[in-house]
């Protein structure tokens, strides 16, 4: 089973709306990462949130982390068509680890 997993396979919103992608994970972590992958590109990291942080922002993006429930969320406000992509959460299990484990991703479609 996946060590990190997004809760929904796909989401669809209209431009300007806000959207939240949720993720749950199963191991102890030092940090959780959110990546975005657009069609034909490799994943690009959006936010890294460490285990001692509860919230992190990057422009229109906001990530939260709840280590007690082993869950995280990524919120995007004022969505744009160019936010259309697959969003992954990813973890590096344990301390001193390096093997980043990705969830299966949530496909977000932002339509005009």
């Amino acid at each position: 089973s996946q060590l990190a997993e997004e809760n929904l396979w796909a989401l669809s919103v209209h431009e300007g709306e806000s959207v939240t992608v949720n993720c749950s994970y199963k191991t102890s972590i030092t940090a959780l990462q959110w990546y975005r992958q657009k069609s034909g590109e490799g994943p690009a990291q959006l936010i890294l949130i460490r285990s001692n942080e509860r919230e992190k922002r990057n422009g229109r993006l906001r990530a939260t982390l709840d280590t007690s429930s082993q869950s995280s969320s990524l919120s995007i406000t004022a969505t744009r068509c160019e936010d259309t992509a697959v969003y992954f959460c990813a973890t590096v299990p344990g301390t001193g680890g390096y093997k980043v484990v990705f969830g299966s991703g949530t496909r977000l479609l932002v339509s005009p």
Partner: protein
Amino acid sequence: NAGVIQTPRHKVTGKGQEATLWCEPISGHSAVFWYRQTIVQGLEFLTYFRNQAPIDDSGMPKERFSAQMPNQSHSTLKIQSTQPQDSAVYLCASSLDYSGNTLYFGEGSRLIVV
């Protein structure tokens, strides 16, 4: 910063042929990762180099896959006797440090085995 460069972007090979994929990591980065991406399996870890040394190849199918990093500026992933199930996007990533906290991915090499 040119980013991670992968070549070729697309490769079609016949069943049983060999395929070699190249990766140029970001200059100054200490770690290189290879992942395979398919619709069914998602992003799967293949192998990891730290300062050119192979550290973990636990994700590599043992018999036909091999990876090398002969110098700091490039890594190769070689697949011998390719099979249709090897069809995937192969992604290379580099990281400034060893932690895996931030991976910079290339655009990937799409391999199709017919």
